[in-house]
């Protein structure tokens, strides 16, 4: 039981740390973003709380210090600089190692000392405020302005605004202004209709989120909480009065508050102002609840169980279809109606089961953001990272298995691909190197592409090394693609010096091996001085795609609809009257592929054939089928290891009648054809 609890905690922390990393990297790009600072603070706070509960004292202590430093930032006493981001990232790593138990406590203590020094220096020394050592020993200096305007039907919801006011009164010193409108509050209470707006000034030791908790049962448009944390505010004893009066004369509360802030002496606003931006403050409460909710709503299930579920559901779908066929003989409307409902339910059931296995690619890609940032710092190269298609969903096991291949590729790109700034400038490129990671569906596969605009693979150098290593003869004629495939040979490297990052010559070979082990493939394109693009093609194991079902010699073949550009009917004679296999499409000749021929089926004498124009990676070609049957939503099933070497299909699918159909691999088919 306790172990489970700890395990749950570890999972939660890992998620939180991932979020933290994301936020930190975001913060570095946009240091002024208070929302991000708040997020980080919240993560630290949550970590501290949970760690304490489970008994990770070291994590609790460390996060406590971080909480302190981010508190200072929140309060505008400190600016974000890269040293803070750096130390927090370090902290994240230390926490992670603490989780696994192999942490050396010295590291944690070291960090704590550094942070203490930072916090002690405090906020640009303006106010000699003591550094906040702990939030337990609270400095009771929070000043809140709260506008509370319950909906007029608040009583019907079983809520009593008076109770809220009482709670606020109990929370600290209050100064409450009641804006009752026409009728008195007492009268409104009798009539059970609320028109009153409360304006509360509260000096309390409670944290912002704790104040928010008091309003737990109210909608976010029913209350707004603003924190005025500056000590200067509290020095002026009349300020509260002023704020109160102002409210009476103004119509919109928000405008009024801005005016209040404008009223403050010049040097006190300015840099610190964002902390009290009303809009931000409102948004501050909600996310805490939603993110916490999300985490609690996650359940870890072994993928084996999911597989089994998926198979059972697929069986059920097939059986239902068979049942329908049998039932149709009875001509009983009640029976067929019931079956129809059963079918609908099973389909829903199947779709739900399908979704369970898939996770967005973004969950992995965001991990790399940190690595890329660290790498670019380490190597002194500025990297502009672009990520597209984060929400493309892929089977979790596959996503996991490509983590290290992807890491290799990214490292290669930054270390070897992207040039240092001066070199880029001399080439007329932008000083920042571009690294683009794109994910998208391609038929039955998911493609993840890593593209850089660096110097490209030096193919002459590859050639030299290949000759040196005895992979090629000195005078051998090698095509570009052949040279590229050399870099995937074991032990191949062109780098003269082995850096910490890459250059050991195991990279691409390992990448290829690992991708092959999950049934994926690798394609490399490179152009001198323009960059390199590495395309990973991955199976989705269990994805659902829309396909067009065609018939080739009574075999049912599925073509992913997203790869199809156009379909039309054409006479056999027009298609195959000449020797060359090309067809004019939009005034361009494109290759024409007869599937019958490819599949070694006997030629047919069907007069009207169907031509399907396929557009894959911007390469167009036409395939010829006997017939188009219709659309089919295919649950992709792997064909298994036995068919790894066949170039035509990326998977199969089970039809409603229990029969099988194969999914055409539109990308590999093209490569296969052009090779011959």
């Amino acid at each position, binding site marked *: 039981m306790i172990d489970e609890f700890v395990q749950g905690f570890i999972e939660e922390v890992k998620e939180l740390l991932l979020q933290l990393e994301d936020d930190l990297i975001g913060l570095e790009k946009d240091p002024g973003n208070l929302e991000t600072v708040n997020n980080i603070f919240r993560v630290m706070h949550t970590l501290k709380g949970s760690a304490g509960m489970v008994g990770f004292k070291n994590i609790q202590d460390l996060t406590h210090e971080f909480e302190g430093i981010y508190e200072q930032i929140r309060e505008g006493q400190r600016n974000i600089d890269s040293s803070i981001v750096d130390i927090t990232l370090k902290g994240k790593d230390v926490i992670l190692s603490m989780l696994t138990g192999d942490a050396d406590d010295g590291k944690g203590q070291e960090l704590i000392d550094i942070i203490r020094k930072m916090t002690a220096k405090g906020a640009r020394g303006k106010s000699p405020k003591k550094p906040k050592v702990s939030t337990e020993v609270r400095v009771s200096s929070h000043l809140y302005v709260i506008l509370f305007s319950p909906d007029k039907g608040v009583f019907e919801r079983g809520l009593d605004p008076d109770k809220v006011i009482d709670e606020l009164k109990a929370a600290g010193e209050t100064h409450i202004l009641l804006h009752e409108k026409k009728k008195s509050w007492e009268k409104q209470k009798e009539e059970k209709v609320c028109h009153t707006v409360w304006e509360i000034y509260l000096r309390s030791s409670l944290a912002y989120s704790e104040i928010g908790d008091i309003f737990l049962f109210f909608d976010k448009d029913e209350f707004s909480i603003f924190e005025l944390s500056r000590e200067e505010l509290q020095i002026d004893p009349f300020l509260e009065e002023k704020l109160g009066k102002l409210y009476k004369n103004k119509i919109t509360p928000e405008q009024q508050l801005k005016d209040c802030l404008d009223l403050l002496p010049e040097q006190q606003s300015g840099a610190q102002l964002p902390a009290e931006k009303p809009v931000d403050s409102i948004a501050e409460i909600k996310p805490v609840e939603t993110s916490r909710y999300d985490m609690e709503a996650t359940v870890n299930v072994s993928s084996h169980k999911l597989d089994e579920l998926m198979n059972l559901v697929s069986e059920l779908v097939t059986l239902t279809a068979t049942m329908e066929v049998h039932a149709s003989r009875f001509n009983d409307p009640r029976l067929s109606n019931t079956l129809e409902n059963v079918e609908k339910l099973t389909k829903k059931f199947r779709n739900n089961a399908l979704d369970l296995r898939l996770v967005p690619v973004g969950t992995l890609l965001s991990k790399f953001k940190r690595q890329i940032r660290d790498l670019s710092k380490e190597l002194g190269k500025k990297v502009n990272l672009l990520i597209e298609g984060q929400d493309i969903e892929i089977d979790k096991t596959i996503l996991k298995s490509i983590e290290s291949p992807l890491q290799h590729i990214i490292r290669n790109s930054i270390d070897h691909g992207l040039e240092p700034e001066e070199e880029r400038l001399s080439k007329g490129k932008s000083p920042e190197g571009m690294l683009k990671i794109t994910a998208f569906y391609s038929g039955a596969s998911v493609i993840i592409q890593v593209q850089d605009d660096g110097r490209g693979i030096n193919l002459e150098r590859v050639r030299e090394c290949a000759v040196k290593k005895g992979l090629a003869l000195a005078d051998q004629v090698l095509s570009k693609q052949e040279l590229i495939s050399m870099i995937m040979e074991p032990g191949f490297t062109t780098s003269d010096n082995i850096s910490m990052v890459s250059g050991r010559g195991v990279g691409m070979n390992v990448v290829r091996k690992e991708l092959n082990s999950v049934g994926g493939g690798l394609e490399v394109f490179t152009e001198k001085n323009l960059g390199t693009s590495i395309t990973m093609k991955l199976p989705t194991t269990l994805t659902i795609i829309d396909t067009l079902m065609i018939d080739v010699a009574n075999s049912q073949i599925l073509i992913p609809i997203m790869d199809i550009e156009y379909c039309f009917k054409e006479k056999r004679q027009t298609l195959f009257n000449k020797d060359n296999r090309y067809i004019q499409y939009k005034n361009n000749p494109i290759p024409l592929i007869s599937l019958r021929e*490819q599949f070694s089926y006997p030629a047919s004498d069907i007069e009207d054939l169907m031509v399907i124009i396929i557009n894959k990676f911007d390469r167009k070609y036409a395939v010829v089928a006997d017939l188009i049957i219709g659309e089919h939503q295919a649950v992709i099933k792997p064909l298994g290891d036995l068919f790894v070497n066949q170039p035509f299909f990326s998977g199969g699918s089970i039809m409603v009648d229990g029969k*099988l159909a194969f999914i055409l691999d539109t990308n590999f088919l093209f490569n296969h054809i052009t090779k011959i």
Partner: protein
Amino acid sequence: MTTSDIDKKTSYINLRIGSESFAISVYKVLEIIQYEELTHVPNCSDYVPGVLNFRGSIVPVIDMHKRFNLDSANVEDKMVVVVDVLSKDKNVLMGLLVDQVTDVLEFEYKSIKSVPDLGIKYNPEFIEGFIEQDGKFIMVLNIDRVLSVEELTDVSQITKE
């Protein structure tokens, strides 16, 4: 394997492929189904006449006649024995196309005779041993080896070229 395992009786499924009899441990067998028309996979090796839908997975069917170079008996109702094979530390489902599943045999592990070095036409790695029944020899198959994916894909590559 402990002594008790050797003494314990195990069940084997007795198959007929062409003129020969083979046995497979029941632990490997998931289901025995009537042969129905398979879905043909274009340009695939002769060993694989097609695939079938077995409980929602695509399962390749291996023609055992071709695998052992035996003539197919003229039997109408062929059977497909779905087995769970261990290949490269992975469990793979495969169907064996056979002429007949005759019966289930029970015998002690120790009664399996080892493979003679000479005089058999099959790769000795494929055969675990022999058992004698009513004066006839039945070959106990090492089914993991017979259906090893490496070997099968190798073959399919050769036939493709």
